[in-house]
């Protein structure tokens, strides 16, 4: 077990107890710990989504025919663009089950609300006014999709019993919605954009203090350790930091988990208990992080020959080969082009395999971009010959500095990925959204069965800004539909200008004029009609005075009024007082909006978190480098180089790779998005690009400021001492 002894010696070196060794260990553990926290969060997304979808499923009303014990009616309230959804319930059997998280079914005039809704009702009188019932309880976590859900259960008023549907209980067997292929594409690309820089960060964290370590290992080589022994010792040393980082990461994850209750981004949130990593991924992280750390240490020893006199002086700087780096970008771009050629954009978006393939193409481009940066920085450092001493010192240091460009590779991957994703999310939004409305002043209210239309219309008439209300009645019959409404609605939806009361139009096919149909139990004769086109279907009749058609209860009320969002809220507030079952038709489907929001917030949150990680990594690498180069720095200071020049040189040392990185990320990120996006849909958000450049400048400044204390210590004459 010789190797075990060497491994233990490595661990002993890592916990050496000197201030430097503790600082190095703490920095490595903090770096790896942050990486592990993010990885654990990423590994928790799947289980968290699953837990949430189980709760949603458990709370959904089971309307399958059979043993009905309840009457239920879905209702909603809109407040300042926020949708408050609820169910009005009435027990029809003594053993009627209560919804999850609720003690008992609320009776008429009673209300059970989510904690967030209760807070809102307490702080906003206008919200409280929408709920005349008295609050008898708060829904427990088990009955909430997310901590900040705005939901309620109310007693079903006697007047609405007819419009409610029978239900057996809660928890339908409907499987959770699966992701659209476009979201698979976006998720593969987003995960790549997050994981590549994270891996780089863990790598950089485990290689902090590399020069000191090389000297230490050389001293051990001198007294007779073989190369193999040195590898085990270095592994033990790195393993200590990685394992400690693993514990720090797990501790940070569990410490931060309770905060999940208070964090909700764009309608996406989870309970702390939802965030539990997938066991397989958790095990992979627990094993993978130390293995990656040890492999990185061994890889470093492969390129740096540690001899008894120190790092081998004969070793040439490793040549940065460009071929494979550009090869990755080329392969990714080729994959995108080939997949786009197989099917058009819309076909790719509809096919999960093609979408994943496209996501992989993007991932290859991102990985290649990260790999190109150190090479490009090396080229720039060798080519540029500036006049100033500060940039000259920075460029010369960059020739031998792998740390800064390596961390910046991570930032560049995040940047490229986020630029690509932002464009693609823009396209996804266009794909998900209905086409922009030509009639923003037209508001459609869907009515529940047997709604009291008269009282609703009276309530709507009181809303300021209402110009006109049209009733829409739809009667299906075998092989078609008869839609009856007024001429304003028909003129707009069928684009006709000759409509008068009694006019009939046909879109598609219908029985011949004179055919007798049964409508609402009465005979009705199909009138003469004209062919038309539009977004109504079947036979459309301006049926104002037709008593048979008028006997069909309306299914929609179309209100023409103000085009702004608050008008919709006011409409719902007014109709809610009469009947909360009235819903306002919106352009997005709620589920799709949430998925879209979850991806957008994921990209934004991930980018912010990784940028923070990058700042920490960059600062750690920069401080580490100043510390390891303190002797040459002290020599420069002793020779009269002003401290200001040294500080500005540190600034240049971060600024040059950052500028090269941005110069690389913007064209590649936008180019990738251009390849993926369908023609004509490619849009560049220049504000975002300007923000990115500004953020990079701030990062460079912060990193440079972080190096100042180390620099001040390095230029002291005491640093000239060698022993």
């Amino acid at each position, binding site marked *: 077990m*010789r190797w075990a002894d060497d491994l233990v010696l490595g661990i*002993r070196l890592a916990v050496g107890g*000197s201030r430097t060794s503790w600082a190095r260990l703490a920095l490595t553990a903090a770096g790896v710990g942050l990486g592990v926290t993010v990885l654990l969060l990423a590994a928790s997304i799947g289980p968290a989504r699953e837990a949430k979808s189980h709760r949603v499923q458990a709370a959904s009303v089971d309307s399958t025919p059979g043993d009905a014990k309840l009457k239920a009616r879905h209702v909603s309230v809109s407040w300042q663009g926020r949708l408050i959804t609820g169910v009005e319930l009435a027990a029809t059997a003594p053993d009627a089950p209560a919804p999850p998280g609720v003690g008992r079914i609320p009776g008429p005039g009673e209300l059970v609300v989510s904690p967030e809704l209760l807070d809102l009702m307490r702080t906003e009188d206008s919200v409280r006014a929408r709920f005349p019932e008295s609050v008898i309880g708060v829904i427990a976590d088990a009955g909430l999709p997310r901590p900040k859900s705005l939901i309620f259960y109310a007693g079903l008023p006697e007047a609405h019993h007819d419009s409610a549907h029978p239900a057996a209980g809660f928890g339908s067997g409907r499987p959770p919605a699966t992701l659209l292929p476009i979201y698979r594409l976006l998720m593969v690309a987003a995960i790549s954009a997050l994981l590549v820089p994270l891996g780089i960060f863990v790598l950089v964290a485990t290689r902090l203090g590399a020069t000191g370590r090389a000297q230490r290992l050389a001293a*051990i*080589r001198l*007294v*007779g350790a073989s190369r193999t022994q040195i590898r085990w010792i270095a592994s033990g040393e790195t393993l200590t930091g990685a394992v400690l980082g693993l514990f720090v990461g797990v501790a940070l994850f569990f410490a931060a988990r309770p905060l999940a209750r208070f964090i909700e981004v764009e309608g996406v949130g989870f309970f702390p208990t939802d965030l539990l990593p997938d066991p397989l991924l958790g095990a992979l992280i627990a094993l993978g992080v130390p293995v990656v750390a040890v492999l990185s240490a061994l890889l470093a020893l492969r390129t740096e020959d540690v001899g008894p006199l120190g790092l081998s002086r*004969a070793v040439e700087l490793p040549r940065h080969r460009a071929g494979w780096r550009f090869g990755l970008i080329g392969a990714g771009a080729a994959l995108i082009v080939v997949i786009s050629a197989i099917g058009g954009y819309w076909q790719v978006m509809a096919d999960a395999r093609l979408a994943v393939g496209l996501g992989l193409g993007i991932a290859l481009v991102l990985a290649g971009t990260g790999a190109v940066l150190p090479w490009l920085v090396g080229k720039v450092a060798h080519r540029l010959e500036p006049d100033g001493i500060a940039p000259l010192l920075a460029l010369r240091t960059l020739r031998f500095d792998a740390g800064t460009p390596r961390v910046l590779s991570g930032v560049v991957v995040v940047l490229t990925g986020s630029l690509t994703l932002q464009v693609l999310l823009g396209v996804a939004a266009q794909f998900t959204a209905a086409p922009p409305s030509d009639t923003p002043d037209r508001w459609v209210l869907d009515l529940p069965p047997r709604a009291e239309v008269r009282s609703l219309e009276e309530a709507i008439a009181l809303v300021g800004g209402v110009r006109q209300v049209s009733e829409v009645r739809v009667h299906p019959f075998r092989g078609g539909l008869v839609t009856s409404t007024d001429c304003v609605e028909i003129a707009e939806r069928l684009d006709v200008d000759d409509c008068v009361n009694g006019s009939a139009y046909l879109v598609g096919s219908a029985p011949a004029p004179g055919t007798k149909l049964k409508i609402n139990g009465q005979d009705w004769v199909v009138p003469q009609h004209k062919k038309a086109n539009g977004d109504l279907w079947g036979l459309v009749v301006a049926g104002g005075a037709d008593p048979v058609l008028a006997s069909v209860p309306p299914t929609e009320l179309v209100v023409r009024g103000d085009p702004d969002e608050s008008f919709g809220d006011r409409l719902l507030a007014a109709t809610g007082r009469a009947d909360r079952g009235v819903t306002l038709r919106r352009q997005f489907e709620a589920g799709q909006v949430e998925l879209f929001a979850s991806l957008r917030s994921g990209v934004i949150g991930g980018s912010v978190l990784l940028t923070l990680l990058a700042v920490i990594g960059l600062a750690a690498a920069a401080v580490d480098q100043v510390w390891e180069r303190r002797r040459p720095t002290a020599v420069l200071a002793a020779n009269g180089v002003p401290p200001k020049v040294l500080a500005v040189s540190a600034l240049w040392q971060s600024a040059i790779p950052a500028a090269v990185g941005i110069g690389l990320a913007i064209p590649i990120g936008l180019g990738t998005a251009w390849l993926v996006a369908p023609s004509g849909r490619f849009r560049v958000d220049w504000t975002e690009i300007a923000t990115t450049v500004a953020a990079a400048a701030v990062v460079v400044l912060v990193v440079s400021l972080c190096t100042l204390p180390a620099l001040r210590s390095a230029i002291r004459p005491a640093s000239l001492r060698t022993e």
Partner: protein
Amino acid sequence: MTSGPMSGPDQTRVLLEAVDLHKSFGPTPALDGAGLGVRAGEVVAVMGPSGSGKSTLLHCLAGILTPDKGTVRYRDVELSAMGDGARSELRRTDFGFVFQFGQLVPELSCLENVALPLRLGSVKRKEAESRAREWLERLEVADVADKRPGETSGGQGQRVAVARALVTGPRVVFADEPTGALDSLNGERVMQLLVTAAKETNAAVVLVTHEPRVAAYSDREVVVRDGKSREMEPVT
């Protein structure tokens, strides 16, 4: 005394011999036909001005550097023919090193530093530390056993380094400017202890120095100049 890979004492024969060594670093020649023979138990001082090639000669003799041309034989085995593993073992068992600075591991205590070569050679920790403690006592630095090198004075640190060089019972101790970073009083004491301990264990010492005062501890002197070596008259 250790029974290293090449055990079997013979004090009349040359233990370590370098013949016609040439070594260049890039375009700069460091050794240009230098040679040296070392017998068991003798102290040889290698002298010369800065940049003359004396440290390079020492590194070639110890098998740390491989000469471009010429041979280094230790007990009739050519070092350049040995693999890295065998040379590492040789450094661990038959050779000891005392350099001007940088040879102690700052993270380990002085006791652990002295025990390190034994631990690398699979000696049990207790035994290794017991032997290390004995050597620290012999070199009068037992009181710094639990301190780290950074917490000791220069003289104490060098004595710890001497203890580490001798703990395995080496046949040859390579000392490169061992007193270069010390004041004269401490330098004298370190040299006395090194030479005395080496004589007691019959270890040869190859001592690189440019100080005649330090060279005075040797049995004979070799001067290196421009990469060439020349034997001096015996020290009286």
